[in-house]
């Protein structure tokens, strides 16, 4: 049977990806360039008995998402720079309380109101460091409409599997671009749901490490009754200031990501095998980079593209290997140099690293990348 295909905008693909993953709650607040995610879900969620609510601000939207997730829903919110800044305190709450949920950030220019309709990639470090305290982070950066669909599904899977918030970041260009997309059949993409407790309600501890680094999560309104707090807590979920218990809990949470990086990491490599120059690019910028690689290869330049699809945790091992192999790594970004810092950190001086940066609301075009690669090779 022929697959269902459609010409879809990135933001719509995100909404349909969420539905495919079983999303049944959306709490949001309108902001360009993410609003279409909310608009589509306001139409589609009630059709399947799901809930859509437009809250009074982004903080409330994030709060409603966490509340719904604790009541057993697969919950989503979508926003952009200013909204993500507002959500930060509660993203941290979802980390420490270990609440699965997905946050879409359709990136625009910044800081502050910045350039609402212009693309940007300047929230990529914020995704890692935006909320206070040490906490695990997973952030995905799709670069096409089809990939927005599949990465939204994967974001839900990772959120459910590791009991934590997962962020999906794509820039305005990918969010508003229309491309052909093939809808996966039900069952074609894996859909993961959180592990629920099997112990008796009396024995249930919401953060019980004896079940491994990701303890099972019950839902409010079932036979299990439990307490959730944003304070440092012990395995039973109640606040503690006992040094060893706080330390154990903090480190277990970090291990959820650090200890499972091979499962979480996803990269695409294009002609990197013999490459002397590597372009490290993500999101819309990777599209220009791929075009540049093709053009340069025609001229015999040994250049390849490394494209992280999971941006956080950072693909340290592979980038370090490529840094040893290559003479130079070129890092085009729609910011003034954010992920280049990570590339530099893991390359440890083994090759030249140069950035191409734009924050004027215009995309980085292949010509710019081609010129830079020729300069470093």
């Amino acid at each position: 049977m022929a697959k269902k295909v459609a010409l879809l905008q990135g933001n719509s693909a995100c909404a349909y990806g969420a539905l495919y993953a079983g999303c049944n709650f959306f709490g949001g607040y309108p902001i360009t360039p993410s609003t279409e995610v909310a608009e589509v879900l306001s139409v589609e969620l009630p059709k399947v008995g799901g809930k859509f609510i437009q809250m009074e601000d982004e903080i409330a939207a994030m709060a409603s998402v966490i509340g719904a997730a604790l009541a057993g829903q697969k919950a989503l919110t979508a926003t952009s720079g200013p909204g993500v800044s507002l959500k930060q305190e509660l993203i941290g709450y979802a980390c420490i309380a270990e609440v699965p949920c997905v946050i879409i950030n359709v990136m625009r220019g910044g800081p502050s109101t910045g350039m609402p309709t212009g693309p940007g990639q300047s929230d990529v470090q914020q995704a890692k460091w935006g909320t206070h305290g040490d906490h695990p982070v997973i952030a995905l950066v799709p670069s096409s409409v089809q990939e927005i669909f599949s990465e939204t599904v994967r974001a839900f899977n990772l959120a459910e599997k590791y009991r934590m918030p997962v962020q999906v970041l794509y820039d305005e260009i990918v969010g508003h671009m229309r491309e052909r997309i093939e809808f996966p059949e039900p069952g074609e993409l894996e859909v993961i749901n959180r592990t629920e407790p099997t112990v008796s309600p009396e024995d249930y501890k919401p953060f019980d490490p004896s079940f491994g680094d990701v303890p099972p999560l019950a839902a409010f309104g079932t036979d299990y009754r439990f307490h959730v707090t944003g304070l440092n807590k012990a395995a039973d979920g109640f606040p503690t200031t006992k040094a060893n218990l706080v330390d154990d809990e903090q480190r277990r949470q970090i291990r959820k990501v650090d200890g499972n990086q091979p499962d979480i990491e996803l990269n695409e490599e294009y002609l990197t095998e013999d490459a002397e120059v590597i372009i490290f690019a993500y999101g819309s910028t990777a599209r220009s980079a791929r075009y540049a690689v093709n053009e340069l290869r025609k001229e015999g330049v040994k250049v390849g593209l490394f494209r992280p699809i999971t941006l956080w945790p950072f693909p340290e091992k592979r980038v370090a290997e490529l840094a040893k192999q290559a003479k130079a790594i070129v890092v085009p970004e729609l910011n003034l140099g954010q992920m280049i810092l990570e590339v530099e950190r893991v390359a440890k001086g083994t090759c030249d690293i140069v950035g191409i940066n734009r924050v004027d609301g215009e995309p980085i075009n292949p010509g710019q990348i081609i010129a830079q690669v020729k300069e470093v090779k």
Partner: protein
Amino acid sequence: MAYDYEKHIRPGKLPHIWCPGCGHGIVMKGMIRAFDACGLEKNNTAIVSGIGCASRMNGYMDYNTLHTAHGRAAAFATGIKMAKPEMDVIVVGGDGDGTAIGGNHFIHACRRNIDMTYIILNNSIYGMTGGQFSPCTPTGAKASTTVYGNPDPTFDIAKLAIGAGATFVARGTAFHATQIDKLIAEGIKHKGMAIIEILDDCPTTYGRRNKFRSVVDMMKRLKEIAVPVAAAAKMTPEQLEGKVLTGVLHKEERPEYTEQYAQVINRAKGA
């Protein structure tokens, strides 16, 4: 026979953190009696709080309990209620939590008329952080950040709730302990947003600075200023000067939010 509070308290979670003479415990006991009177099922009830001394209350109570972030309780609770409208959702927190940092969520929860019962413990101060003034601190009063007297005007929580659209609004005091459970129970039974303000005391950070010699003095003041709505109807404006009305201040019927959304689902499925 003495009332058995124990069965609603989580084993091993007491003693509580509150200071001697703090009114928050009186309100918790009232809540428990109200839950009992309404036959709330522990598994089917969520108690959601913010941050502050008052917000620590739900940690002691043997229900589904969510201690959220400062000011955000009503928004978290909205997510739970939307997800599971069949659950009973209770919000509890302080005056600072609910009307300063959480003011926006407070008014919008009222506007939606979502079926929740919000118990707001108004001790006119930020207790937990050591007595800075809140939007409910009387003008002229002393707080750690208003040593020259508070220049700020004061919120009337009940008026705010009524103006914002809450369909049940009541006020009680920590002194009138036996009335607390009745007001809360009526709020729980009401379909829609019920705001129950309980005037409370904080001897540690408010009483001390504002010339209350003891907890008894603070309680006496609550006794003196409270006037039941029925009695107030027969009093002159001069007699009502400096008084606050207690009892059920407002009650109306208006479509409830999750029921409205159930209709949205029906329309979407029919379309």
